[in-house]
Protein backbone atom coordinates (compact mmCIF):
# COMPACT_ATOMS: atom_id res chain seq x y z
CA UNK A 1 0.00 0.00 0.00
CA UNK A 2 2.85 2.34 0.87
CA UNK A 3 4.19 1.94 -2.65
CA UNK A 4 0.84 3.04 -4.09
CA UNK A 5 0.59 6.09 -1.82
CA UNK A 6 4.17 6.94 -2.60
CA UNK A 7 3.35 6.55 -6.32
CA UNK A 8 0.37 8.88 -5.95
CA UNK A 9 2.48 11.42 -4.09
CA UNK A 10 5.23 11.18 -6.69
CA UNK A 11 2.72 11.52 -9.56
CA UNK A 12 1.25 14.61 -7.94
CA UNK A 13 4.70 16.02 -7.43
CA UNK A 14 5.71 15.33 -11.05
CA UNK A 15 2.49 16.91 -12.24
CA UNK A 16 2.63 19.96 -9.98
CA UNK A 17 6.28 20.66 -10.70
CA UNK A 18 5.57 20.20 -14.42
CA UNK A 19 8.59 17.95 -14.78
CA UNK A 20 9.73 18.64 -18.36
CA UNK A 21 10.65 15.02 -19.09
CA UNK A 22 7.32 13.70 -17.81
CA UNK A 23 5.46 16.39 -19.72
CA UNK A 24 7.33 15.47 -22.91
CA UNK A 25 6.57 11.76 -22.40
CA UNK A 26 2.90 12.48 -21.72
CA UNK A 27 2.52 14.77 -24.72
CA UNK A 28 4.28 12.27 -27.00
CA UNK A 29 1.96 9.49 -25.75
CA UNK A 30 -1.05 11.63 -26.54
CA UNK A 31 0.33 12.68 -29.91
CA UNK A 32 1.33 9.19 -31.06
CA UNK A 33 -1.83 7.42 -29.87
CA UNK A 34 -4.11 10.29 -30.91
CA UNK A 35 -2.72 10.40 -34.45
CA UNK A 36 -2.73 6.61 -34.70
CA UNK A 37 -6.41 6.60 -33.62
CA UNK A 38 -7.30 9.27 -36.19
CA UNK A 39 -5.55 7.34 -38.98
CA UNK A 40 -7.27 4.15 -37.79
CA UNK A 41 -10.64 5.91 -37.86
CA UNK A 42 -10.14 6.78 -41.52
CA UNK A 43 -8.89 3.28 -42.37
CA UNK A 44 -11.49 1.57 -40.16
CA UNK A 45 -14.44 3.44 -41.65
CA UNK A 46 -12.93 3.02 -45.11
CA UNK A 47 -13.16 -0.73 -44.57
CA UNK A 48 -16.38 -0.89 -42.52
CA UNK A 49 -18.57 1.24 -44.82
CA UNK A 50 -18.12 -0.74 -48.06
CA UNK A 51 -18.20 -4.07 -46.21
CA UNK A 52 -21.42 -3.11 -44.41
CA UNK A 53 -23.18 -1.61 -47.42
CA UNK A 54 -22.31 -4.03 -50.20
CA UNK A 55 -22.79 -7.71 -50.80
CA UNK A 56 -19.89 -9.62 -52.29
CA UNK A 57 -18.59 -13.17 -52.27
CA UNK A 58 -16.37 -13.83 -49.27
CA UNK A 59 -17.95 -11.10 -47.15
CA UNK A 60 -18.20 -13.40 -44.14
CA UNK A 61 -14.52 -14.26 -44.45
CA UNK A 62 -13.62 -10.55 -44.50
CA UNK A 63 -15.75 -9.98 -41.38
CA UNK A 64 -14.12 -12.96 -39.64
CA UNK A 65 -10.66 -11.60 -40.53
CA UNK A 66 -11.59 -8.16 -39.20
CA UNK A 67 -12.87 -9.64 -35.98
CA UNK A 68 -9.66 -11.63 -35.62
CA UNK A 69 -7.70 -8.44 -36.26
CA UNK A 70 -9.41 -6.84 -33.27
CA UNK A 71 -7.30 -9.08 -31.07
CA UNK A 72 -3.94 -8.57 -32.83
CA UNK A 73 -1.14 -9.01 -30.24
CA UNK A 74 0.91 -5.78 -30.15
CA UNK A 75 4.21 -7.65 -30.06
CA UNK A 76 3.30 -9.45 -33.28
CA UNK A 77 2.44 -6.11 -34.87
CA UNK A 78 5.68 -4.69 -33.48
CA UNK A 79 7.66 -7.53 -35.02
CA UNK A 80 6.06 -7.15 -38.47
CA UNK A 81 6.36 -3.36 -38.52
CA UNK A 82 10.01 -3.61 -37.40
CA UNK A 83 10.75 -6.04 -40.23
CA UNK A 84 8.91 -3.82 -42.71
CA UNK A 85 10.82 -0.72 -41.62
CA UNK A 86 14.19 -2.42 -41.12
CA UNK A 87 16.96 -0.94 -43.22
CA UNK A 88 16.72 -3.77 -45.76
CA UNK A 89 12.93 -4.18 -45.38
CA UNK A 90 10.32 -3.25 -48.00
CA UNK A 91 9.71 0.14 -46.31
CA UNK A 92 13.30 0.61 -45.10
CA UNK A 93 13.78 3.54 -47.48
CA UNK A 94 11.41 5.57 -45.30
CA UNK A 95 14.02 5.52 -42.52
CA UNK A 96 11.45 5.95 -39.78
CA UNK A 97 12.29 2.99 -37.53
CA UNK A 98 12.86 4.16 -33.92
CA UNK A 99 10.92 7.37 -34.57
CA UNK A 100 7.44 8.41 -33.42
CA UNK A 101 6.28 7.88 -37.02
CA UNK A 102 7.06 4.16 -36.72
CA UNK A 103 5.12 4.03 -33.43
CA UNK A 104 2.14 5.75 -35.07
CA UNK A 105 2.28 3.23 -37.92
CA UNK A 106 2.38 0.25 -35.54
CA UNK A 107 -0.40 1.63 -33.34
CA UNK A 108 -2.54 2.35 -36.42
CA UNK A 109 -2.13 -1.29 -37.45
CA UNK A 110 -3.37 -2.32 -33.99
CA UNK A 111 -6.31 0.13 -33.81
CA UNK A 112 -7.60 -0.08 -37.40
CA UNK A 113 -9.18 -3.54 -37.11
CA UNK A 114 -10.67 -2.59 -33.72
CA UNK A 115 -12.35 0.50 -35.18
CA UNK A 116 -13.29 -1.29 -38.40
CA UNK A 117 -14.79 -4.26 -36.54
CA UNK A 118 -16.89 -2.22 -34.11
CA UNK A 119 -17.95 0.24 -36.84
CA UNK A 120 -18.98 -2.60 -39.11
CA UNK A 121 -21.05 -4.14 -36.37
CA UNK A 122 -22.60 -0.71 -35.62
CA UNK A 123 -23.57 -0.16 -39.25
CA UNK A 124 -24.92 -3.68 -39.60
CA UNK A 125 -27.10 -3.18 -36.54
CA UNK A 126 -28.95 -0.22 -38.03
CA UNK A 127 -32.52 -1.08 -39.11
CA UNK A 128 -32.34 -2.93 -42.43
CA UNK A 129 -34.71 -0.56 -44.23
CA UNK A 130 -32.97 2.64 -43.11
CA UNK A 131 -30.71 2.77 -46.17
CA UNK A 132 -33.68 2.55 -48.52
CA UNK A 133 -35.57 5.12 -46.47
CA UNK A 134 -32.68 7.57 -46.71
CA UNK A 135 -32.43 7.03 -50.47
CA UNK A 136 -36.21 7.45 -50.76
CA UNK A 137 -35.88 10.82 -49.04
CA UNK A 138 -33.69 11.85 -51.96
CA UNK A 139 -30.20 11.36 -50.54
CA UNK A 140 -27.18 10.98 -52.79
CA UNK A 141 -24.85 8.12 -51.92
CA UNK A 142 -22.43 10.29 -49.86
CA UNK A 143 -25.41 11.85 -48.03
CA UNK A 144 -26.75 8.36 -47.28
CA UNK A 145 -23.39 7.21 -45.85
CA UNK A 146 -23.14 10.38 -43.74
CA UNK A 147 -26.66 9.90 -42.33
CA UNK A 148 -25.96 6.26 -41.54
CA UNK A 149 -22.73 7.21 -39.72
CA UNK A 150 -24.62 9.91 -37.84
CA UNK A 151 -27.27 7.40 -36.86
CA UNK A 152 -24.58 4.99 -35.62
CA UNK A 153 -22.63 7.76 -33.84
CA UNK A 154 -22.88 6.21 -30.36
CA UNK A 155 -21.25 2.88 -31.22
CA UNK A 156 -18.87 4.65 -33.63
CA UNK A 157 -17.52 6.82 -30.83
CA UNK A 158 -17.30 3.67 -28.73
CA UNK A 159 -15.16 2.24 -31.56
CA UNK A 160 -12.88 5.29 -31.38
CA UNK A 161 -12.62 4.91 -27.60
CA UNK A 162 -11.81 1.22 -27.93
CA UNK A 163 -9.20 1.97 -30.58
CA UNK A 164 -7.59 4.72 -28.51
CA UNK A 165 -7.74 2.58 -25.38
CA UNK A 166 -6.04 -0.25 -27.27
CA UNK A 167 -3.09 1.84 -28.40
CA UNK A 168 -2.53 4.21 -25.47
CA UNK A 169 -2.13 1.14 -23.25
CA UNK A 170 0.01 -1.05 -25.50
CA UNK A 171 3.72 -1.35 -24.89
CA UNK A 172 5.01 -4.24 -27.01
CA UNK A 173 4.82 -2.61 -30.42
CA UNK A 174 5.92 0.82 -29.20
CA UNK A 175 9.03 -0.49 -27.52
CA UNK A 176 9.94 -2.63 -30.56
CA UNK A 177 9.49 0.00 -33.27
CA UNK A 178 10.25 3.06 -31.10
CA UNK A 179 13.08 1.76 -28.99
CA UNK A 180 12.12 3.83 -25.90
CA UNK A 181 14.70 6.48 -26.76
CA UNK A 182 14.77 9.25 -24.17
CA UNK A 183 13.50 12.52 -25.54
CA UNK A 184 12.50 10.93 -28.83
CA UNK A 185 10.30 7.85 -28.60
CA UNK A 186 9.75 7.37 -24.89
CA UNK A 187 6.03 7.23 -24.06
CA UNK A 188 4.20 6.56 -20.78
CA UNK A 189 3.94 2.79 -21.28
CA UNK A 190 7.54 2.23 -22.37
CA UNK A 191 8.80 4.52 -19.60
CA UNK A 192 6.73 2.61 -17.04
CA UNK A 193 8.24 -0.70 -18.18
CA UNK A 194 11.73 0.76 -17.97
CA UNK A 195 11.25 2.31 -14.51
CA UNK A 196 9.75 -0.94 -13.19
CA UNK A 197 12.67 -2.97 -14.52
CA UNK A 198 15.01 -0.51 -12.78
CA UNK A 199 13.12 -0.94 -9.50
CA UNK A 200 11.89 2.68 -9.45
CA UNK A 201 8.38 1.70 -8.45
CA UNK A 202 7.34 5.19 -7.27
CA UNK A 203 8.14 6.69 -10.67
CA UNK A 204 6.55 3.69 -12.42
CA UNK A 205 3.39 4.20 -10.36
CA UNK A 206 3.43 7.89 -11.07
CA UNK A 207 3.71 7.25 -14.81
CA UNK A 208 0.93 4.63 -14.64
CA UNK A 209 -1.34 7.05 -12.81
CA UNK A 210 -0.62 9.67 -15.45
CA UNK A 211 -1.46 7.10 -18.13
CA UNK A 212 -4.79 6.39 -16.44
CA UNK A 213 -5.56 10.09 -16.08
CA UNK A 214 -4.71 10.65 -19.75
CA UNK A 215 -6.88 7.73 -20.86
CA UNK A 216 -9.72 8.95 -18.65
CA UNK A 217 -9.47 12.55 -19.92
CA UNK A 218 -9.55 11.53 -23.57
CA UNK A 219 -12.43 9.13 -23.01
CA UNK A 220 -14.31 11.75 -20.97
CA UNK A 221 -14.04 14.18 -23.90
CA UNK A 222 -15.18 11.48 -26.36
CA UNK A 223 -18.05 10.48 -24.08
CA UNK A 224 -19.13 14.11 -23.86
CA UNK A 225 -19.14 14.29 -27.67
CA UNK A 226 -21.01 10.98 -27.85
CA UNK A 227 -23.80 12.02 -25.51
CA UNK A 228 -23.94 15.74 -26.36
CA UNK A 229 -26.57 15.83 -29.10
CA UNK A 230 -28.46 12.81 -28.00
CA UNK A 231 -32.18 13.58 -27.55
CA UNK A 232 -33.26 12.57 -24.08
Amino acid at each position, binding site marked *: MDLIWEGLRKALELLLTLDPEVLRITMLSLEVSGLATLISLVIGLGIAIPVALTEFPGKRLVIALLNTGMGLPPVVVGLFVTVLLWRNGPLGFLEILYTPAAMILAQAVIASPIIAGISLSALQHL*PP*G*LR*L*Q*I*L*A*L*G*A*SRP*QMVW*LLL*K*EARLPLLAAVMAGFGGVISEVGASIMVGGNIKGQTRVLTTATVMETSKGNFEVAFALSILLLVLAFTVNAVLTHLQQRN*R*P*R
Partner: protein
Amino acid sequence: MSRATVLEARNLKVHRGQTQVLDVPALDLRAGEVLALMGPNGAGKSTLMLALAGLLPLSGGSLRFKGAELAGRPEREAYRRRMTMVFQDPLLFDATVAQNIATGLKLRGAPATLREPAVRAWAQRLGIGHLLGRPARQLSGGEAQRTALARAFALGPEILFLDEPFASLDAPAREGLLDDLGRILAETGSTAVLSTHDQAEAARLGHRLAVMKDGVILQTGGLREVMNHPEDPFVAAFVGMETLLKGQVASSGGGLLTLRLGRGGDGHEVLAVGEARPGQTILVGIRPEHVALSLHSDKSSSARNAFPGTVTKVVPRGPFFKVELDCGFFLAAYVTAQSLAELELGPGSTIVASFKATAAHLIRREGLESEV
Protein backbone atom coordinates in the same frame (compact mmCIF):
# COMPACT_ATOMS: atom_id res chain seq x y z
CA MET B 1 -61.61 12.65 -67.80
CA SER B 2 -58.44 10.75 -68.59
CA ARG B 3 -55.49 11.61 -66.38
CA ALA B 4 -51.88 11.88 -67.50
CA THR B 5 -49.70 8.87 -66.87
CA VAL B 6 -47.04 9.69 -64.32
CA LEU B 7 -45.20 6.40 -64.18
CA GLU B 8 -45.09 3.63 -66.75
CA ALA B 9 -43.57 0.27 -65.93
CA ARG B 10 -42.97 -2.23 -68.72
CA ASN B 11 -41.79 -5.83 -68.40
CA LEU B 12 -40.43 -5.29 -64.90
CA LYS B 13 -38.48 -8.30 -63.73
CA VAL B 14 -36.60 -8.76 -60.48
CA HIS B 15 -34.56 -11.81 -59.54
CA ARG B 16 -33.32 -12.87 -56.14
CA GLY B 17 -30.48 -15.23 -56.85
CA GLN B 18 -31.78 -17.54 -59.55
CA THR B 19 -35.42 -17.05 -58.58
CA GLN B 20 -37.65 -14.56 -60.36
CA VAL B 21 -39.57 -12.71 -57.66
CA LEU B 22 -41.33 -10.11 -59.81
CA ASP B 23 -42.77 -10.20 -63.30
CA VAL B 24 -44.99 -7.29 -64.25
CA PRO B 25 -45.57 -6.88 -68.00
CA ALA B 26 -47.26 -3.48 -67.72
CA LEU B 27 -48.40 -1.13 -65.01
CA ASP B 28 -49.29 2.55 -65.28
CA LEU B 29 -49.81 5.09 -62.55
CA ARG B 30 -51.98 8.08 -63.38
CA ALA B 31 -51.80 11.57 -61.91
CA GLY B 32 -53.89 12.03 -58.78
CA GLU B 33 -54.81 8.39 -58.32
CA VAL B 34 -54.09 6.07 -55.42
CA LEU B 35 -53.21 2.62 -56.71
CA ALA B 36 -53.66 -0.03 -54.03
CA LEU B 37 -51.47 -3.11 -54.35
CA MET B 38 -53.12 -5.98 -52.54
CA GLY B 39 -51.87 -9.43 -51.84
CA PRO B 40 -50.84 -11.75 -49.05
CA ASN B 41 -47.41 -11.62 -47.41
CA GLY B 42 -44.76 -12.64 -49.91
CA ALA B 43 -46.91 -11.72 -52.91
CA GLY B 44 -44.28 -9.25 -54.13
CA LYS B 45 -46.02 -5.99 -53.18
CA SER B 46 -42.96 -4.48 -51.48
CA THR B 47 -40.67 -5.71 -54.25
CA LEU B 48 -42.88 -4.09 -56.88
CA MET B 49 -43.05 -0.90 -54.85
CA LEU B 50 -39.26 -0.73 -54.42
CA ALA B 51 -38.85 -1.43 -58.13
CA LEU B 52 -41.32 1.33 -59.04
CA ALA B 53 -39.49 3.68 -56.67
CA GLY B 54 -36.18 2.98 -58.38
CA LEU B 55 -34.77 1.55 -55.18
CA LEU B 56 -34.21 -1.96 -56.44
CA PRO B 57 -31.97 -3.10 -59.27
CA LEU B 58 -34.11 -4.55 -62.07
CA SER B 59 -33.12 -7.65 -63.93
CA GLY B 60 -35.22 -6.49 -66.85
CA GLY B 61 -37.74 -3.96 -68.04
CA SER B 62 -38.06 -0.23 -68.03
CA LEU B 63 -39.54 2.63 -66.01
CA ARG B 64 -40.65 5.93 -67.48
CA PHE B 65 -41.40 8.89 -65.23
CA LYS B 66 -43.48 11.59 -66.93
CA GLY B 67 -42.42 10.24 -70.32
CA ALA B 68 -38.68 10.14 -69.65
CA GLU B 69 -37.00 6.79 -69.31
CA LEU B 70 -35.13 6.20 -66.05
CA ALA B 71 -32.26 4.54 -67.82
CA GLY B 72 -29.14 5.36 -65.83
CA ARG B 73 -28.08 6.17 -62.30
CA PRO B 74 -28.29 9.98 -62.69
CA GLU B 75 -31.89 9.73 -63.95
CA ARG B 76 -32.83 7.41 -61.08
CA GLU B 77 -31.18 9.71 -58.53
CA ALA B 78 -33.05 12.68 -59.96
CA TYR B 79 -36.29 10.64 -59.88
CA ARG B 80 -35.71 9.73 -56.23
CA ARG B 81 -35.75 13.44 -55.44
CA ARG B 82 -39.25 13.76 -56.90
CA MET B 83 -40.89 10.86 -55.10
CA THR B 84 -40.68 9.45 -51.60
CA MET B 85 -41.66 6.38 -49.66
CA VAL B 86 -43.10 5.53 -46.26
CA PHE B 87 -42.39 2.06 -44.95
CA GLN B 88 -44.17 -0.21 -42.49
CA ASP B 89 -41.50 0.64 -39.92
CA PRO B 90 -41.42 4.45 -39.53
CA LEU B 91 -37.58 4.37 -39.71
CA LEU B 92 -37.11 7.65 -37.87
CA PHE B 93 -33.70 9.07 -37.06
CA ASP B 94 -32.33 9.41 -33.54
CA ALA B 95 -33.36 13.08 -33.44
CA THR B 96 -36.39 15.19 -32.59
CA VAL B 97 -39.67 15.00 -34.47
CA ALA B 98 -38.96 18.37 -36.12
CA GLN B 99 -35.48 17.29 -37.20
CA ASN B 100 -36.94 14.09 -38.61
CA ILE B 101 -39.59 15.88 -40.65
CA ALA B 102 -36.95 18.29 -41.98
CA THR B 103 -34.50 15.56 -43.04
CA GLY B 104 -35.75 15.00 -46.59
CA LEU B 105 -36.04 18.73 -47.24
CA LYS B 106 -32.48 19.22 -46.00
CA LEU B 107 -31.21 16.38 -48.20
CA ARG B 108 -32.90 18.00 -51.19
CA GLY B 109 -31.24 21.31 -50.44
CA ALA B 110 -34.27 23.29 -49.20
CA PRO B 111 -33.15 26.37 -47.23
CA ALA B 112 -34.06 26.68 -43.54
CA THR B 113 -36.53 29.47 -44.35
CA LEU B 114 -38.58 26.98 -46.36
CA ARG B 115 -37.97 23.99 -44.13
CA GLU B 116 -39.27 25.40 -40.89
CA PRO B 117 -42.75 26.46 -42.08
CA ALA B 118 -43.14 23.19 -43.98
CA VAL B 119 -42.20 21.17 -40.89
CA ARG B 120 -44.68 23.07 -38.72
CA ALA B 121 -47.48 22.92 -41.29
CA TRP B 122 -47.20 19.17 -41.93
CA ALA B 123 -46.80 18.36 -38.25
CA GLN B 124 -50.05 20.27 -37.62
CA ARG B 125 -51.87 18.53 -40.47
CA LEU B 126 -50.87 15.15 -39.13
CA GLY B 127 -51.79 16.03 -35.56
CA ILE B 128 -48.26 15.99 -34.13
CA GLY B 129 -47.69 19.74 -33.92
CA HIS B 130 -47.30 19.49 -30.15
CA LEU B 131 -44.56 16.87 -30.45
CA LEU B 132 -42.04 18.78 -32.58
CA GLY B 133 -39.39 18.96 -29.86
CA ARG B 134 -39.82 15.41 -28.67
CA PRO B 135 -37.16 12.76 -29.38
CA ALA B 136 -38.46 10.42 -32.06
CA ARG B 137 -37.55 7.38 -29.96
CA GLN B 138 -40.09 8.40 -27.31
CA LEU B 139 -43.04 8.36 -29.71
CA SER B 140 -45.83 5.80 -29.76
CA GLY B 141 -46.23 3.67 -32.90
CA GLY B 142 -49.00 5.89 -34.26
CA GLU B 143 -47.10 9.13 -33.54
CA ALA B 144 -43.97 7.71 -35.16
CA GLN B 145 -45.85 6.75 -38.32
CA ARG B 146 -47.47 10.20 -38.40
CA THR B 147 -43.97 11.70 -38.21
CA ALA B 148 -42.84 9.48 -41.10
CA LEU B 149 -45.88 10.61 -43.12
CA ALA B 150 -45.24 14.29 -42.30
CA ARG B 151 -41.61 13.82 -43.40
CA ALA B 152 -42.88 12.39 -46.70
CA PHE B 153 -45.65 14.93 -47.38
CA ALA B 154 -43.35 17.85 -46.51
CA LEU B 155 -41.37 16.97 -49.64
CA GLY B 156 -44.39 17.53 -51.89
CA PRO B 157 -43.62 14.27 -53.70
CA GLU B 158 -44.89 13.74 -57.22
CA ILE B 159 -45.40 10.08 -56.30
CA LEU B 160 -45.87 8.84 -52.76
CA PHE B 161 -45.16 5.16 -52.12
CA LEU B 162 -46.82 3.79 -48.98
CA ASP B 163 -45.58 0.31 -48.12
CA GLU B 164 -48.05 -1.15 -45.61
CA PRO B 165 -47.90 1.99 -43.46
CA PHE B 166 -50.55 0.75 -41.01
CA ALA B 167 -49.39 -2.83 -40.64
CA SER B 168 -47.58 -2.39 -37.34
CA LEU B 169 -50.16 -0.13 -35.67
CA ASP B 170 -52.80 -1.09 -33.14
CA ALA B 171 -56.45 -0.76 -34.18
CA PRO B 172 -57.24 2.70 -32.70
CA ALA B 173 -54.02 4.27 -34.03
CA ARG B 174 -54.64 2.63 -37.41
CA GLU B 175 -58.22 3.90 -37.65
CA GLY B 176 -57.25 7.49 -36.83
CA LEU B 177 -54.36 7.48 -39.24
CA LEU B 178 -56.45 5.91 -42.03
CA ASP B 179 -58.95 8.76 -41.70
CA ASP B 180 -56.27 11.45 -41.67
CA LEU B 181 -54.29 9.93 -44.52
CA GLY B 182 -57.43 9.52 -46.63
CA ARG B 183 -58.32 13.17 -46.04
CA ILE B 184 -54.81 14.43 -46.82
CA LEU B 185 -54.49 12.31 -49.97
CA ALA B 186 -57.82 13.71 -51.19
CA GLU B 187 -56.98 17.31 -50.27
CA THR B 188 -53.55 17.23 -51.91
CA GLY B 189 -54.66 15.19 -54.93
CA SER B 190 -51.56 13.09 -54.37
CA THR B 191 -50.47 10.37 -56.76
CA ALA B 192 -49.75 7.39 -54.58
CA VAL B 193 -49.13 3.67 -54.52
CA LEU B 194 -50.31 1.90 -51.36
CA SER B 195 -49.50 -1.69 -50.56
CA THR B 196 -51.69 -3.54 -48.13
CA HIS B 197 -53.06 -6.96 -47.38
CA ASP B 198 -56.21 -5.45 -45.93
CA GLN B 199 -59.13 -4.95 -48.29
CA ALA B 200 -60.71 -2.34 -46.01
CA GLU B 201 -57.59 -0.16 -46.25
CA ALA B 202 -57.49 -0.61 -50.02
CA ALA B 203 -61.19 0.25 -50.28
CA ARG B 204 -60.85 3.37 -48.12
CA LEU B 205 -57.79 4.84 -49.77
CA GLY B 206 -57.48 3.32 -53.23
CA HIS B 207 -58.99 4.41 -56.53
CA ARG B 208 -57.59 1.48 -58.47
CA LEU B 209 -56.64 -1.94 -57.26
CA ALA B 210 -53.99 -4.42 -58.35
CA VAL B 211 -54.08 -7.85 -56.75
CA MET B 212 -50.77 -9.70 -56.60
CA LYS B 213 -49.67 -13.24 -55.95
CA ASP B 214 -46.24 -14.83 -56.34
CA GLY B 215 -44.71 -11.71 -57.88
CA VAL B 216 -47.37 -11.40 -60.57
CA ILE B 217 -50.32 -9.01 -60.88
CA LEU B 218 -53.42 -11.17 -61.29
CA GLN B 219 -55.87 -8.35 -61.92
CA THR B 220 -55.81 -4.56 -62.15
CA GLY B 221 -58.81 -2.31 -62.38
CA GLY B 222 -61.08 0.16 -60.67
CA LEU B 223 -61.78 -0.57 -57.03
CA ARG B 224 -65.42 -1.62 -57.54
CA GLU B 225 -64.59 -3.52 -60.68
CA VAL B 226 -61.99 -5.73 -59.00
CA MET B 227 -63.97 -6.07 -55.77
CA ASN B 228 -67.17 -7.07 -57.56
CA HIS B 229 -65.87 -8.71 -60.72
CA PRO B 230 -62.76 -10.65 -59.83
CA GLU B 231 -61.42 -12.58 -62.77
CA ASP B 232 -59.67 -15.23 -60.74
CA PRO B 233 -60.65 -17.38 -57.74
CA PHE B 234 -57.62 -16.16 -55.77
CA VAL B 235 -58.53 -12.53 -56.42
CA ALA B 236 -62.16 -13.28 -55.52
CA ALA B 237 -61.19 -14.84 -52.21
CA PHE B 238 -58.68 -12.10 -51.47
CA VAL B 239 -61.10 -9.23 -52.07
CA GLY B 240 -63.60 -10.77 -49.69
CA MET B 241 -65.85 -12.65 -52.07
CA GLU B 242 -66.20 -15.39 -49.53
CA THR B 243 -68.67 -17.60 -51.35
CA LEU B 244 -67.37 -19.17 -54.53
CA LEU B 245 -69.75 -21.59 -56.27
CA LYS B 246 -68.58 -23.87 -59.00
CA GLY B 247 -70.94 -25.57 -61.45
CA GLN B 248 -72.12 -25.95 -65.00
CA VAL B 249 -74.19 -23.46 -66.94
CA ALA B 250 -77.69 -24.95 -67.28
CA SER B 251 -79.04 -22.17 -69.46
CA SER B 252 -78.00 -18.73 -70.58
CA GLY B 253 -79.71 -15.86 -72.36
CA GLY B 254 -80.70 -12.22 -72.07
CA GLY B 255 -77.68 -11.45 -69.87
CA LEU B 256 -78.70 -14.01 -67.25
CA LEU B 257 -77.51 -17.51 -66.69
CA THR B 258 -78.54 -20.40 -64.51
CA LEU B 259 -75.76 -22.26 -62.81
CA ARG B 260 -76.32 -25.81 -61.68
CA LEU B 261 -73.97 -26.36 -58.79
CA GLY B 262 -71.51 -29.20 -59.14
CA ARG B 263 -70.06 -31.64 -56.65
CA GLY B 264 -71.42 -30.97 -53.16
CA GLY B 265 -73.94 -28.43 -54.49
CA ASP B 266 -76.83 -30.83 -54.26
CA GLY B 267 -78.17 -29.88 -57.69
CA HIS B 268 -79.13 -26.37 -56.57
CA GLU B 269 -79.54 -23.75 -59.24
CA VAL B 270 -78.28 -20.20 -58.88
CA LEU B 271 -79.32 -17.34 -61.12
CA ALA B 272 -76.45 -15.00 -62.00
CA VAL B 273 -75.74 -12.10 -64.31
CA GLY B 274 -73.55 -12.98 -67.27
CA GLU B 275 -73.28 -14.89 -70.50
CA ALA B 276 -71.75 -18.33 -70.81
CA ARG B 277 -72.12 -21.32 -73.02
CA PRO B 278 -74.55 -23.94 -71.64
CA GLY B 279 -72.56 -26.86 -70.28
CA GLN B 280 -69.54 -24.67 -69.59
CA THR B 281 -68.02 -24.97 -66.12
CA ILE B 282 -67.78 -21.66 -64.37
CA LEU B 283 -67.28 -20.12 -60.99
CA VAL B 284 -69.66 -17.64 -59.42
CA GLY B 285 -68.74 -15.42 -56.48
CA ILE B 286 -71.03 -13.76 -53.93
CA ARG B 287 -69.90 -11.11 -51.47
CA PRO B 288 -71.18 -11.76 -47.91
CA GLU B 289 -72.55 -8.23 -47.63
CA HIS B 290 -74.86 -8.96 -50.59
CA VAL B 291 -76.54 -11.90 -48.88
CA ALA B 292 -79.70 -11.17 -46.86
CA LEU B 293 -81.04 -13.47 -44.14
CA SER B 294 -84.68 -13.84 -43.09
CA LEU B 295 -86.71 -16.28 -41.09
CA HIS B 296 -89.13 -16.99 -43.96
CA SER B 297 -88.96 -16.88 -47.71
CA ASP B 298 -90.11 -13.47 -48.95
CA LYS B 299 -91.98 -13.91 -52.24
CA SER B 300 -92.23 -10.16 -52.73
CA SER B 301 -88.45 -9.69 -52.70
CA SER B 302 -86.52 -8.86 -55.85
CA ALA B 303 -83.85 -11.36 -54.84
CA ARG B 304 -84.03 -14.15 -57.41
CA ASN B 305 -82.00 -16.59 -55.36
CA ALA B 306 -83.40 -17.85 -52.05
CA PHE B 307 -82.16 -20.94 -50.24
CA PRO B 308 -83.18 -22.39 -46.90
CA GLY B 309 -80.19 -23.32 -44.79
CA THR B 310 -78.74 -23.93 -41.37
CA VAL B 311 -76.31 -21.67 -39.55
CA THR B 312 -73.03 -23.50 -38.96
CA LYS B 313 -70.92 -20.74 -37.46
CA VAL B 314 -71.11 -17.09 -36.36
CA VAL B 315 -67.83 -15.17 -36.42
CA PRO B 316 -67.40 -11.53 -35.25
CA ARG B 317 -65.91 -9.37 -38.02
CA GLY B 318 -65.39 -5.86 -36.64
CA PRO B 319 -68.71 -4.04 -36.83
CA PHE B 320 -70.43 -7.11 -38.38
CA PHE B 321 -70.87 -10.78 -37.77
CA LYS B 322 -70.11 -13.29 -40.46
CA VAL B 323 -72.74 -16.01 -40.55
CA GLU B 324 -71.70 -19.21 -42.29
CA LEU B 325 -74.55 -21.28 -43.69
CA ASP B 326 -75.08 -24.73 -45.03
CA CYS B 327 -77.69 -24.41 -47.79
CA GLY B 328 -76.63 -27.65 -49.39
CA PHE B 329 -73.62 -25.58 -50.39
CA PHE B 330 -71.51 -23.07 -48.44
CA LEU B 331 -72.82 -19.52 -48.22
CA ALA B 332 -71.52 -16.63 -46.10
CA ALA B 333 -73.49 -13.54 -45.07
CA TYR B 334 -72.68 -10.43 -43.05
CA VAL B 335 -75.25 -9.22 -40.52
CA THR B 336 -75.21 -6.51 -37.89
CA ALA B 337 -75.30 -7.30 -34.18
CA GLN B 338 -78.91 -6.03 -34.13
CA SER B 339 -79.99 -8.42 -36.90
CA LEU B 340 -78.15 -11.26 -35.20
CA ALA B 341 -80.13 -10.62 -32.01
CA GLU B 342 -83.50 -10.07 -33.73
CA LEU B 343 -83.23 -13.22 -35.84
CA GLU B 344 -81.82 -15.10 -32.83
CA LEU B 345 -79.09 -16.54 -35.00
CA GLY B 346 -76.70 -19.14 -33.70
CA PRO B 347 -75.28 -22.45 -34.83
CA GLY B 348 -78.19 -24.74 -35.75
CA SER B 349 -80.68 -21.94 -36.52
CA THR B 350 -82.67 -22.46 -39.71
CA ILE B 351 -82.88 -19.45 -41.97
CA VAL B 352 -83.52 -18.38 -45.54
CA ALA B 353 -80.61 -16.78 -47.37
CA SER B 354 -81.32 -14.69 -50.42
CA PHE B 355 -79.33 -12.65 -52.88
CA LYS B 356 -80.06 -10.93 -56.16
CA ALA B 357 -78.89 -12.35 -59.45
CA THR B 358 -76.83 -9.16 -59.83
CA ALA B 359 -74.93 -10.05 -56.65
CA ALA B 360 -73.78 -13.36 -58.11
CA HIS B 361 -70.73 -12.47 -60.16
CA LEU B 362 -69.43 -14.69 -62.86
CA ILE B 363 -65.76 -15.54 -62.51
CA ARG B 364 -64.51 -17.32 -65.59
CA ARG B 365 -61.66 -19.64 -65.20
CA GLU B 366 -59.94 -21.71 -67.80
CA GLY B 367 -59.25 -25.32 -66.96
CA LEU B 368 -62.20 -25.63 -64.57
CA GLU B 369 -63.69 -28.47 -66.62
CA SER B 370 -60.96 -30.84 -65.56
CA GLU B 371 -61.62 -30.10 -61.90
CA VAL B 372 -65.40 -30.67 -61.83
